[in-house]
């Protein structure tokens, strides 16, 4: 469960305790346009005709948008029609004015069973005060469904008279009537709350809470009583949170998030440790979701002491709820022996919001030592605190390996061209393999971000005495990209001498990362290596790199891609490269591609790949290939493939051409 955005939670909390929404605003006076009038007349003509029921149904629906009181009689006449009653109510529920109310009321005496339930439901939606007597009468209907509908409709309409009727029946009713009556009472209470009448709302909720109603209604009433009572509801809230009944605990945890006010926060915070230990994390989460600053000391204390679970929850909460004051606690915990706690605390430090937080972290970093310094450097890097870069750079020379490693990583994360020189110097000095790897990663990261501007700073590494450093230089240069970097790497790839370094240079060219695949400058070196590389492996790698470039470059149009592939076809001997060619061309709708795939279909090693590509390419009706070419490709695939399913598909698609 994520600790939510507290800003959102705060707004939600306000919404949760706001007066109940009136789902159906009081209808306004009709102000429809002439166009609406015209449409209304059309729809009424349909209703008055002998047109099919389907057309009449849609007419009812359109009258919900365009109908006026003039449409009411025609719609009302359909309320007794089992097939069209629901459609008619779509219109009647929406049309403003007393006419529709009267029509629905009159229908109460004309329909029974489900149709009557529907009419009552619509009256409830329209909140027709004039129907209260009729609805009270139907609380005693023989049909439970009708009585429940009446109770809920009364609840929606609300007011003292409805409340009295519902309460009276609730205390005297039979079990089958309780769910509807309880729902009616609760909706009625919501209406009181919406009108800022907390006292009658609380009384009504309490009546339901103590009545023999279904458990869910009891829970809703419990929540309602607490919210309606406000601060006076706190004891009842705490009672739920301590309850052995898990359903009561559950409604307590939800309500604890809703009940507004500082006193509720204080009660929850002050009482936290009185709950059973296994319950404390959940109560703390609820407390945190209130987004009340008064809870902060309790959350900080929970982050320091208590069960591991409670501390983890508290630390997680602090990343959103905390401020500059919680930094010491989080820093201390980030150095804890318990790695779960330490990691959680560091993560919270990374996300802790506020400019004052960054200023405080920076200030601490200037004098920090040991583990704290390491944590602060990591946090500063991950927070992308540019102001901390000088401190990070100086820490790359620290005595402690942990601090140095954190510093190199942090500089790699946010450093720029200016930070390459100290990293390069460090790279030339270190003899520790792990540190060299960290430095290489940082150099690649910075070079990748800053591009060709980083090349001059990297060049000293190219001539370093250690091979691993020269390899790292190649990688960083490749990450930088650009003509100068390419020149250096290509020169290494074709130079006599260090064989392993040359291999790595070829490999780096073949996986040229920066500006790939738009960097067309890589083409010539790759083609040259593919044609005349010193080793077969160099030729193969270069060829593959070249084909990948062709495949990935969106700027190359279809004809250029085909031409580019054709240029290297004489060099392609191995099945692996042929497969790569197939993957490059299998979406290029061109007769030459079909010919090539047909040719590859004759090579036992790749025939299935070629046949599958032919079916993919030629099977598409809208591929752009003409019918004869498509048929040729599909027939070739059907003839050459050993896959029976593919053959069937090829033949079937050929037959459809």
């Amino acid at each position, binding site marked *: 469960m994520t600790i939510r955005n507290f800003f959102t939670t705060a707004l939600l909390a306000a919404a949760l305790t706001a007066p109940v929404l009136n789902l159906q605003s009081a209808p*306004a006076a009709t102000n429809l346009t002439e166009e609406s009038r015209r449409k209304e007349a059309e729809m009424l003509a349909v209703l008055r005709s002998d047109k099919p029921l389907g*057309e009449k149904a849609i007419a009812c629906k359109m009258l919900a948008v365009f109908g006026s009181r003039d449409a009411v009689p025609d719609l009302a006449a359909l309320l007794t029609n089992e097939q069209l009653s629901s459609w008619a109510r779509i219109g009647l529920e929406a049309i403003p004015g007393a006419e529709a109310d009267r029509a629905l009321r009159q229908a109460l005496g004309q329909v029974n069973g489900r149709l009557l339930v529907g009419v009552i439901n619509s009256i409830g939606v329209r909140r027709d005060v004039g129907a209260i007597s009729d609805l009270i009468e139907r609380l005693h209907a023989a049909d439970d469904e009708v009585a429940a509908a009446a109770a809920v409709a009364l609840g929606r309409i609300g007011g003292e008279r409805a409340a009295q009727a519902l309460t009276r029946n609730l205390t005297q009713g039979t079990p089958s009537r309780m769910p509807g009556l309880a729902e009616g009472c609760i909706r009625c209470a919501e209406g009181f709350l919406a009108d800022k009448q907390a006292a009658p709302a609380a009384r009504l909720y309490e009546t339901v809470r103590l009545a023999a109603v279904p458990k869910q209604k009891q829970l809703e009433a419990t929540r309602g009583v607490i919210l309606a009572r406000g601060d006076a509801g706190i004891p009842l809230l705490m009672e739920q949170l301590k309850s052995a009944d898990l359903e009561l605990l559950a409604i307590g945890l939800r309500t604890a998030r809703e009940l507004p006010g500082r006193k509720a926060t204080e009660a929850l915070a002050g009482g936290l440790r009185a709950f059973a230990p296994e319950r404390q994390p959940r109560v703390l989460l609820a407390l945190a979701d209130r987004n009340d600053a008064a809870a902060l000391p309790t959350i900080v204390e929970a982050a320091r002491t208590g069960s*591991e679970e409670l501390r983890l929850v508290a630390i997680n909460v602090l990343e959103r709820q905390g401020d500059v004051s919680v930094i010491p606690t989080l820093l201390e915990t980030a150095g804890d022996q318990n790695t779960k706690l330490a990691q959680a605390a560091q993560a919270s430090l990374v996300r802790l919001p506020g400019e004052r937080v960054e200023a405080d972290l920076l200030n601490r970093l200037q004098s920090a030592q040991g583990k704290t310094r390491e944590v602060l450097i990591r946090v500063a890097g991950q927070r992308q605190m540019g102001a901390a870069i000088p401190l990070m750079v100086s820490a790359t020379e620290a005595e402690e390996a942990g601090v140095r490693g954190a510093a190199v990583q942090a500089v790699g994360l946010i450093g720029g061209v200016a930070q390459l020189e100290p990293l390069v110097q460090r790279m030339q000095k270190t003899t520790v393999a792990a540190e060299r790897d960290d430095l290489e990663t940082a150099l690649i990261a910075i070079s990748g971000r800053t591009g060709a501007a980083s090349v001059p700073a990297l060049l000293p590494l190219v001539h370093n005495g250690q091979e691993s450093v020269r390899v790292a230089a190649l990688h960083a240069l490749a990450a930088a990209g650009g003509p100068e970097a390419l020149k250096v790497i290509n020169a290494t790839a074709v130079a006599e001498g260090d064989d392993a370094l040359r291999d790595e240079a070829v490999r780096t060219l073949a996986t040229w990362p920066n500006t790939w695949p738009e960097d067309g400058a890589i083409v010539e070196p790759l083609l040259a290596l593919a044609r005349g590389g010193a080793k077969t492996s160099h030729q193969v790698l270069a060829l593959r790199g070249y084909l990948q470039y062709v495949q990935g470059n969106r700027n190359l149009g279809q004809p250029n891609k085909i031409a580019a592939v054709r240029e290297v076809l004489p060099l392609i001997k191995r099945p692996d490269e042929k497969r790569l060619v197939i993957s490059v061309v299998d979406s290029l709708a061109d007769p030459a591609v079909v010919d090539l795939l047909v040719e590859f279909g004759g090579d036992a090693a790749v025939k299935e790949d070629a046949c599958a590509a032919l079916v993919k390419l030629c099977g598409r009706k809208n591929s752009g290939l003409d019918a004869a070419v498509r048929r040729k490709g599909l027939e070739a695939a059907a003839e050459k493939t050993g896959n029976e399913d593919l053959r069937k598909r090829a033949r079937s698609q050929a037959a459809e051409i």
Partner: protein
Amino acid sequence: MQYQNALKAKTAHGLASTSHSPALESRAFSRRRFLRATLQAGAILALPQIVPGAVLGKNGAVAPSERIVLGAIGIGNRGSYVLGCFLEEPDVQFVAIADVKAGRRKAVKDRADAKYGNQDCQTYRDLRELLARQDIDAVLIATGPNWHGLASMLSANAGKDVYCEKPCTKNIVESLALAQTFRRTGRVFQAGTQRRSLPNFAFAVDLAQRGKLGRLHTLHAHPGGLDPKTSGWAEPQTVPDKDDVDWDLYLGPAAYRPFNKGFLDGFNFEKGGGLTGGGCLEWGSHCVDLCQWANSADHTAPVEYEPKGKELHAVYANGVRLVLRNDGWIGLGSCPVRFEGDKGWIETGDDGEIAASSPALLTGKGAKVSGYPANFHVRDFLDCVKTRAHTRADADAACWAHIACHAANISLFLNRQVKYDPVKNEFIGDEAANRLRSEALREPWRI
């Protein structure tokens, strides 16, 4: 642009492993390593932390008291997938399926019984029978959208927590009723908008919310079509046996029409109320929802909506624009969103990749997850069932995201600008639009 392409670059790592070059294996340099180094140096923790499972009692073996007993309502294609996500969770005990279609009831029972090695999964034609069971804690609702909202509210009223597929509601009033019902009942709700639980979308939203893009000014959502779809009345056909397909229950809250098997495609039936629904609801419930989240607008909706050519433009009260458009995306998979501020932009989609105006923005973007799995979202729901906290896509968030989609659809249906007051929940001086906020439910159903 080059940066976006680099992000999408296929790694060449595997290609280097040829039989001719064993010596080249040791210190492989690849585009993947380049990207990792460039974007993720250090152990970055950019996303909000989650409460450890230990807090929630799911450390390995699950005590009976911590087990969540689950039922399902309406399980077709999508539901089958999401149910699979639930069944993978060790603290879920699935016990019952309610579906109006016999074939689906049997398929789910067979699957559950095979998993548990018993015959205990109970089947129900009528969801009310399932909801009457006191032993069921939570339900997965994956009916067609016609039933989503009503079934969710019936479930909450019956004391169940709810994971419901989207779109969750048919109109504005139903959206408000959904939120209010879950407040009233104290039940946990999770809309099936699983992208809220996926790292690429969460990362993009986090950047927007934390001001890393500067002052937000425009949010882009891909609605997957802006055409309204109308569910009407079709030629009557022979009504199947009630046990095979319960047509009356299938119609549920939708106005009556005679049986026609063409309507049994529950995916589209009565979506968005059957008058103004369609693509905007189908995909907007995801991508508009993500824009709402990015704009910290889970408690409100845009105040103006206007069709503009092939697009729909909306404006929030804070001045941020929301653009619903089908074209012009970078190509990062389905359901893309794009957030733009005065200091940068970020765009992501279902393939899990993220493109941004600057590589620095992508620091700490974390592991790529593509294919929009629902597992994380399901887990979030289950955890919240235990803590009673609000889920990532709770009823309020779903309510307002859906209101935004419904209001957009109403603007499209009326083919003009409409202005919405999210406090009063009414269109301003616009009776036609206001009448489209709700629709009567067929008897005996109510919300």
